[in-house]
């Protein structure tokens, strides 16, 4: 140690800032961190912003939520309203509802903060969902990022939990009916449902405990878990480094983009303020959850056109779609003296269960089918993985049908159609929709791949029409430069992996099943264009040029060839 200090004299800072920085650095070792991260490279793409939106909405939720806790009182004790909103003066209500009204009408900026909080919550869940769609469709969940995908799935569930627990807090009529539905769903659970309901509500519905219990979950437990998951999520992003879209100069061994400092940090940091600003604009001009219109919770009234917040919609829609007595058969059954409420249990648990199970396990499902266990850092363009894209679209359509069903009554009233017909159509789409979605998405993806081939081999359309000497019109195509072309041809196109015998020389049934799925996954494929094909295509091109000059019967022949340029 002494040898080192004599060899290298201790650093002495010259400025005041330098001395403070040096003080901290020499005690926590910030230099090493800065050296590691200061110039870390981040790829840039607009679709990478969804995750950022989610993160920033969460920060805004913490800020606005903390403000609200200073004024909100989660008590369900009865009180008579005596605040600034005249129509409700003297009305009997819970303290929770009364304090929510006070935040809206008697605290300066309180309504604004409530609106910011609610809009940020809606945006939070939405951005998490869209971010996950981006990750799915680009194959970013593949090795080594499977665990981070799972963390993301957990975050989606937590985001919905945070939203729902918060949604119920004002104890207004709308959210109270939401809780009533939750109570009904819980009671349908076999064996323990009634007990869970009594334990959750502290007795019979609605009781006097639920709001303060949800409040604790909403401001402590759920946000703490979300924070923990976000830390894990970002830690893994650092470990893995970010994925990148395919393109010239990008491969699985490098990461191409902008250094964290200054460009990426500035863009990402500035983007926080933009997200905040947009949420502020929404809060300024679009009313969200006007609880004063609904009145306090009362088990008797309900307003027509009740809607949950958007992210709960798909479960509510599934509840609506389930027929209770199809063809006179009672879905609710009494077996051995006990009630099996399948008309509630099935729609509440099965679709959400299937969606989340497939979501959580998808990286492993695809890895098993494709036997692809390599590390992937270059993303797939969705068109270059047609079957995966089709699966994603099928799931998305399925979700959307259920989601639309949550607004079946509004669809009926807005479009002046029969409510029953809307439900019948959506019931049919519940089954057919994903199939159509799968087929259409796969065909579109393959068509786009073929278009890419066309452009890579024959160039882009210039819009320039040339008339040939014999009267035919052709459109001149301009060849791509090699960078643009590489983006269209530089992708992997995996092929069907037939069943392989195991070490005993036996093809197991599981392996046969895998091979079947592999065929289903990869049998329709468009191979990327090769240099040889490009050479051949250029041959046509030259002929076309000659043809344009016109040389006897050669021109006729060439015109045949030049058709490839004319469509």
């Amino acid at each position, binding site marked *: 140690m002494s040898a080192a200090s004599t060899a290298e004299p201790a650093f002495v800072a010259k400025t005041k800032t330098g001395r403070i920085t040096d003080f901290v650095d020499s005690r926590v070792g910030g230099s090493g961190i800065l050296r590691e991260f200061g110039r870390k490279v981040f790829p840039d793409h607009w679709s990478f912003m969804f995750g950022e939106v989610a993160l920033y909405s969460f920060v805004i939720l913490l800020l606005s939520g903390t403000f609200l806790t200073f004024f909100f009182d989660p008590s369900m004790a009865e009180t008579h309203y005596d605040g600034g909103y005249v129509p409700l003066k003297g009305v009997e209500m819970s303290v929770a509802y009364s304090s929510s009204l006070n935040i*809206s*009408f008697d605290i*300066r900026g309180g*309504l*604004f903060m409530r609106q*910011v909080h609610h809009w940020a919550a809606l945006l939070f869940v939405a951005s998490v969902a869209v971010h996950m769609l981006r990750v799915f469709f680009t194959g970013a969940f593949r090795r080594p990022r499977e665990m981070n995908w799972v963390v993301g799935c957990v975050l989606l569930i937590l985001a919905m939990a945070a939203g729902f627990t918060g949604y119920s807090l004002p104890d207004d009529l709308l959210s109270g*009916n939401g809780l*009533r539905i939750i109570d009904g769903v819980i*009671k*349908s659970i*076999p064996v323990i449902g*009634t007990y869970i309901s009594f*334990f959750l*509500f502290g007795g*019979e*519905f609605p*009781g006097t*405990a639920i709001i303060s219990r949800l409040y604790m979950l909403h401001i402590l437990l759920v946000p703490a878990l979300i924070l923990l998951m976000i830390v894990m999520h970002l830690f893994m992003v650092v470990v*893995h480094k970010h994925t990148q879209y395919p393109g*010239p100069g990008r491969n*699985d061994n*490098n*990461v*191409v983009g*902008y250094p964290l400092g200054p*460009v990426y940090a*500035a863009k990402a940091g*500035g983007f926080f*303020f*933009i997200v*905040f*600003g*947009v949420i*502020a*604009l929404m*809060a*300024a001009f679009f009313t969200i959850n006007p609880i004063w219109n609904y009145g306090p919770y009362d*088990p*008797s009234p*309900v*307003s027509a056109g*009740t809607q949950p917040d958007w992210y709960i919609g798909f479960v509510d829609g599934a*509840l609506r779609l389930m*027929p*209770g007595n199809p063809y006179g058969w009672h879905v609710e059954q009494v077996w051995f*003296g006990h*009630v099996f409420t399948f*008309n509630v249990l099935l729609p509440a648990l099965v679709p959400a269960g299937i969606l989340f199970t497939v979501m959580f396990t998808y990286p492993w499902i695809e890895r098993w089918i494709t036997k692809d266990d390599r590390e992937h850092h270059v993303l797939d363009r969705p068109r270059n993985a047609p079957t995966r894209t089709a699966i994603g679209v099928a799931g998305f359509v399925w979700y959307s049908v259920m989601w639309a069903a949550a607004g*079946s*009554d509004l669809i009926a009233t807005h479009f002046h159609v029969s409510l029953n017909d809307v439900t019948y159509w959506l019931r049919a789409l519940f089954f057919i929709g994903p199939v159509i979605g799968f087929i259409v998405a796969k065909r579109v993806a393959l068509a786009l791949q073929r278009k890419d*081939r066309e452009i890579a081999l024959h160039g882009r359309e210039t819009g320039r029409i040339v008339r040939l000497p014999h009267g035919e019109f052709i459109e001149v195509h301009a060849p791509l430069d090699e960078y643009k*072309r590489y983006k269209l041809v*530089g992708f992997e*196109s995996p092929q069907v992996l037939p069943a392989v015998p195991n070490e005993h020389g036996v093809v197991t049934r599981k392996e046969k099943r895998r091979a079947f799925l592999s065929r289903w996954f990869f049998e329709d*494929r468009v191979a990327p264009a*090769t*240099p*040889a094909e490009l050479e051949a*295509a250029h041959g046509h091109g030259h002929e076309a040029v000659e043809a344009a000059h016109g040389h006897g019967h050669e021109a006729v022949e060439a015109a045949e060839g030049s*058709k490839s340029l004319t469509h």
Partner: protein
Amino acid sequence: MGNHSDGSPNHSGTVATAGQNEVERFQDPGIPPHRLRLADTDPKAAKRAERQVALLFGISVVGTLIFLVTYFAIDLGDDSSIATIRLQNALLGIGTAFAMLGIGTGIVHWAKALMPDHEVSEERHAIRYEEDRQAAVRIVDDIVEETGIKRRPLIRNTLLGAVALAPLPAIAIFGDLGPRPDDKLAHTMWAPQDGKRKRLTRDPDGTPIKASDVTIGSAFHVIPEGLNELQEGKLNEKAKAVVLLMRLDPASLNPSKGREEWGYNGIVAYSKICTHVGCPVALYEQQTHHLLCPCHQSTFDLTQECKVIFGPASRPLPQLPIAVDDEGYLVATSDFHEPVGPSYWERDSHERSVNS
């Protein structure tokens, strides 16, 4: 589309040529050459961008001022009107939005126009090195060896047993989150008290309803007599006891055996709590005699004892037996003959015990 012979689509529209991957692939041309921006070459453009960034930051300052002025200038007072609230909300929002968007767009513009936009490439490193893995395995082996847990199964097994049981109190301690359900869900306030039958009263003011008040086609939202006077658990009782009262032509009602006396002169009362998941079945379609739940659109037909004719509910709405007392007021002759509201595991046994 064109009909090409260059190895592209066959008739199925796709290519499935074996051995395609062995064909030589395009070489990666590398990162495209950097293209200079206007601000890189023209000092005037750079200066202009600089001024734009400063202007955006200035807009942010204006936004902050708008917020502060609004906060202190708009007085909510005691009786703040919706218009005042709306104005305050809009101005606070605009102020915040300008303050934030000014900073955000300013920084992003600065980064995009003036900071270097050279793309750089960095090598990825292996996530795990074989050397590390071996070292880690050795360390774990040493740790396990030093604890001696493999050599002393008694310690291991008793520890596993203890750890497996230890969380049980943590579960048990939540036992007082709520009371036992018992048969609370099977009974409502409508049961006659000390031989006195409860009158049907209007929701929410609690005034009793005379049979003569109920004209054909009308509907009443009903709560039991005495509900409003309850000191505790008012909402709990209300959540079970609310009833819809309707009168229609007695000829259109088709009471089943044993239920002939449950109505009075075409007046019938049904539980308002949906048998699906418990929303109030609040919509009465007078012309069709249908009751519709606005939450999930379960539809019940009044002329068929509220049988489910559409939607996710599976059971009819329970009927409340009613009659008229000496003074002409409607009363409930008994409680519901089955538990009201959504189904639950013990519901069937409750129904049997209520009727026995």
